[in-house]
């Protein structure tokens, strides 16, 4: 203790008046150039940092091509299995079922991709990469935003691929004016809605102890949520109570909206409802997720 106390006395003034001067003095004495320190991160810098961190998530694919299979082959496999195995039994013919199910499969795939956001964040937390990032002078939101941005990009890729392969298999975009716009709108809608849902998954990743637990939670919640909707089947054959739930299920509403935009049927109402759901999810879960992120990360 003998050496500490005199130190406190001699430097107390540096604390109270002119913190900047003390810093500059310390640097000058070591012969370093006086550094101009930025007081905070600007929004433009923060955006670039977000892009850098999104790049980091996407470049992982190059080193781990299995991941590419995970988010390209898997949705296509789902599409083929549902169309040709269940299609005839559920929808009368594979082709009729393809037209019914493709919008739902796009929704299901996007929903499951949000699980990647959560497990990725959880892994970064556990392995200490987040501590590395947080010790750097970067925007506090960049690690989170970068991860979400990268996963949105992956979703866009998977949705585009599903649409392309669906078209090859015989999926016909609905006739009528403005249909190319309809496909584009469907594309945008599914990205907006899954972005909203990913806030809930971010919250889960911050509360869960490790990536495995995130994975388990995802399956326990996302699987039933998806399958108790009209994403894959018409709800008419379900028991009454399940039909009632299915009508309110956001996955159903989003699937209906996608059908309306991609094929035919009423679009305005389910689209509006989907956007309401998205807004509600964002309002509830984004603040909770950001708070948990600040606390944990």
């Amino acid at each position: 203790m003998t050496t500490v106390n005199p130190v406190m006395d001699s430097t107390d003034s540096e604390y109270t008046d002119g913190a900047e001067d003390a810093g500059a003095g310390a640097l000058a004495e070591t012969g370093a150039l006086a550094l101009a320190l930025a007081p905070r991160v600007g929004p433009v810098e923060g955006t670039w940092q977000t892009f850098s961190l999104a790049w980091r998530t996407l470049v992982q694919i190059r080193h781990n091509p299995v991941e590419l299979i995970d988010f390209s082959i898997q949705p296509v496999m789902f599409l083929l299995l549902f169309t040709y195995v269940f299609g005839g039994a559920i929808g009368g013919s594979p082709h009729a079922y393809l037209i019914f199910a493709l919008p739902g499969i796009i929704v299901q795939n996007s929903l499951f991709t949000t699980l990647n956001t959560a497990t990725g964040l959880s892994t970064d937390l556990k392995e200490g990469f987040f501590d590395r990032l947080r010790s750097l002078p970067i925007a506090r939101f960049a690690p989170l935003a970068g991860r979400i941005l990268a996963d949105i990009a992956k979703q866009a890729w998977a949705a585009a691929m599903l649409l392309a392969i669906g078209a090859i298999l015989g999926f016909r975009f609905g006739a009528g004016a403005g249909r190319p716009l309809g496909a584009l709108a469907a594309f945008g809608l599914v990205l907006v809605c899954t972005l909203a849902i990913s806030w809930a998954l971010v919250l889960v990743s911050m509360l869960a102890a490790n990536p495995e637990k995130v994975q388990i939670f995802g399956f326990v919640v996302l699987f039933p949520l998806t399958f108790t909707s009209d994403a894959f089947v018409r709800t008419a054959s379900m028991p009454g109570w399940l039909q009632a739930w299915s009508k309110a299920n956001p996955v159903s509403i989003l699937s209906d909206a996608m059908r309306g935009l991609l094929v035919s049927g009423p679009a305005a109402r389910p689209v509006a409802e989907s956007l309401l759901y998205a807004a509600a999810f964002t309002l509830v879960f984004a603040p909770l997720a950001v708070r948990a992120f600040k606390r944990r990360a």
Partner: protein
Amino acid sequence: MTYSIIAEGLVKRFGDTVALDGIDLAVRTGSVLGLLGPNGAGKTTAVRILATLVHPDGGRAAVCGHDVVSHAHQVRQLTGLTGQYASADNTLTGFENLTLIGRLTGQSRPDAKARARELLAGFRLTDAGDRAVKTYSGGMRRRLDLAASLVNRPRVLYLDEPTTGLDPLSRNEMWDVVRGLTAAGVTVLLTTQYLEEADQLADEIVVIDHGTVIATGTPEELKARAGALTLGVRPALAEDLPAVLAAVAGFTRSDPEVRATTVTIPVSGEDVMPAVVRRLEDAGIRVAELNLRGSTLDEVFLSLTGHRAEEAGTAELEGSAA
């Protein structure tokens, strides 16, 4: 005299656990401070507060005059962190990890790449630069972690147990790197569980236990106080133990300790050995075993605090605190 790191009365609680219970630190610019203590003593928590990762519940700390809470962004521009909990992305290559950090800290693409190459070469990782970090050995990983914390040319560097789990060769390499950094004027705060490491690198050592400072001084001062070496004497006959205790009593200020039939005492230097041998001979004690070795942290603790460093159990606390 200028101080790059100053902490006053730092307190941090995690639930009911008090990780830091009022710690004072002062690190002279360009020097190395060794923060020595067992697992769970609060070393990592202290570093995390100084690196702006955790807010203290009490007290204050400043790096180069910038408060770690109210001016965290300035502090982050001046500091680098390498430790158990700050690591690289396993799936990226070493080169990509370093360029990413360069880009994040505002370097242009060519600058970030040049800096990454420079650091990889400096840490003998050029050949491994294009391999994913998950294929690296423990020593390579630590070198990369250290390189990552240097991308932004920090003035102050935190090394949180930089050599824990490394083989002796890699440990010596890390030590050389740290010496090189201090020669370049970087201020270093180093946490360690190894007395030898603090002795090798630090200009000043602060020993902490249960979140409080229990001793401060230069390595020489501490060794003189605590006994840098431990002398062990095992008499051939167990009934000679009291005689051995009496014979060695004059060589140390703290009490001799008896484990099984071996008497151990902390001593300050090698010159004690011949004197002890003479004394034992004079007393007519037949000695089965006589040895002199470096004191362990445990033994230093025992002589500084009178109790053993509690290694087991508390390790988890610090882990969950992180």
